[in-house]
């Protein structure tokens, strides 16, 4: 006989009653946000950023970043720090970059977020299709927290992404690709 199943605990949002991960589709996402920032930061890492710094310069590039489940709060990165960070590149504001970030959405699933390809004249819907095909995964263009569009790819593709980007879109130099790691932007070419 089958083992006795153990009931799972689901994090329901007290504001809209839905599982917290569906708040974004609920009747009033804005109202859920304060609760989500406190209680489900790992589901909506972009909210903490949004709240922490509304005036932040949008990271204009492709960022790849990784966050693990135990570090749910790493996403409240300080944009200041990011700007000064690696290689002493100060003029990032004008420079097109691609930033890749891995976000763990819940216990095991993660999403790799790619921002900034559009700055290199890449059509995001095409890019999304290519990424989905290449990594046999779900890829979609979504509105990011700063109203800019980004590509979300299901799964962890950090490993191959740089090679894929530079080979597919040859006008994107490797040096313009960054990973977001624990809230910090680091060059993909280490």
């Amino acid at each position, binding site marked *: *006989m*089958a*083992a*006795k*199943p153990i*009931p*799972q605990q*689901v994090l329901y949002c007290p504001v*809209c*009653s*839905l*599982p917290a*991960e*569906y708040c974004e*589709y*609920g*009747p009033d996402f804005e109202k859920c946000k304060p609760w989500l920032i406190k209680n489900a930061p790992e589901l909506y890492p972009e909210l903490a950023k949004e709240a922490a710094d509304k005036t932040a310069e949008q990271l204009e590039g492709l960022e790849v970043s990784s966050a693990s489940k135990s570090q749910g709060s790493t996403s409240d990165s300080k944009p200041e720090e990011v700007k000064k960070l690696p290689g002493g590149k100060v003029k990032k504001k004008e420079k097109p970059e691609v930033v890749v970030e891995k976000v763990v*959405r*819940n*216990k095991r*699933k993660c*999403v790799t977020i790619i921002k900034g390809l559009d700055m290199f004249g890449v059509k995001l819907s095409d890019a999304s*299709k290519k990424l*989905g*095909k290449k990594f046999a*995964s*779900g*890829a*979609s263009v*979504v509105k990011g927290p700063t109203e800019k569009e980004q590509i*979300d790819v*299901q799964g962890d593709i950090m490993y191959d992404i740089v090679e894929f980007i530079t080979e597919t879109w040859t006008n994107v130099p490797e040096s313009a690709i960054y990973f977001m790691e624990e809230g910090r932007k680091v060059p993909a070419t280490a």
Partner: protein
Amino acid sequence: MFKKFTSEEISAQNQVKASVQRKIRQSISEEYPDLEPILDELLPKKSPLIVAKCQNHINLVVVNNVPLFFNVRDGPYMPTLRLLHQYPSIMKMLRVDRGAIKFVLAGANIMCPGLTSAGGALDEEVPAEAPVAIMAEGKQHALAIGYTKMSAKDIKSINKGIGVDNMHYLNDGLWKTLHLD
């Protein structure tokens, strides 16, 4: 189906006879064998089992005022989403892509392309006319309970039209009905 459901549309709530209770238990345990070990807790033999009759031939199976299962006429019993969330592995799953989520949550039936696209996923074992959990790309928990109109294989090969009827979804009337008084 439960889009505008409220407890007011329940026409009758009846405690069922022991023989009917046994039948209900049996069909639930046949449909969801993984639930069998806890069926005594879910549907305690000693607590009265209530069947609430609603519009459109929908029946709710209610224990201690909490709706746990529903069916249409004498079709298969399906768990409420709240129950499924606790025991997610009892049902076969189909996954819709991210783009389909908002339509499913508005009550739309599930179109084949939403299941066959890159973000979707099909369990090829799923036959036609089967209860299934509808999952979503990038999400951990089910957002709807569906009843397949065609088999997963047909959904894949035909890839047109409605593949799965949307029976119950997050934030519909049944979701909002936590308790029946």
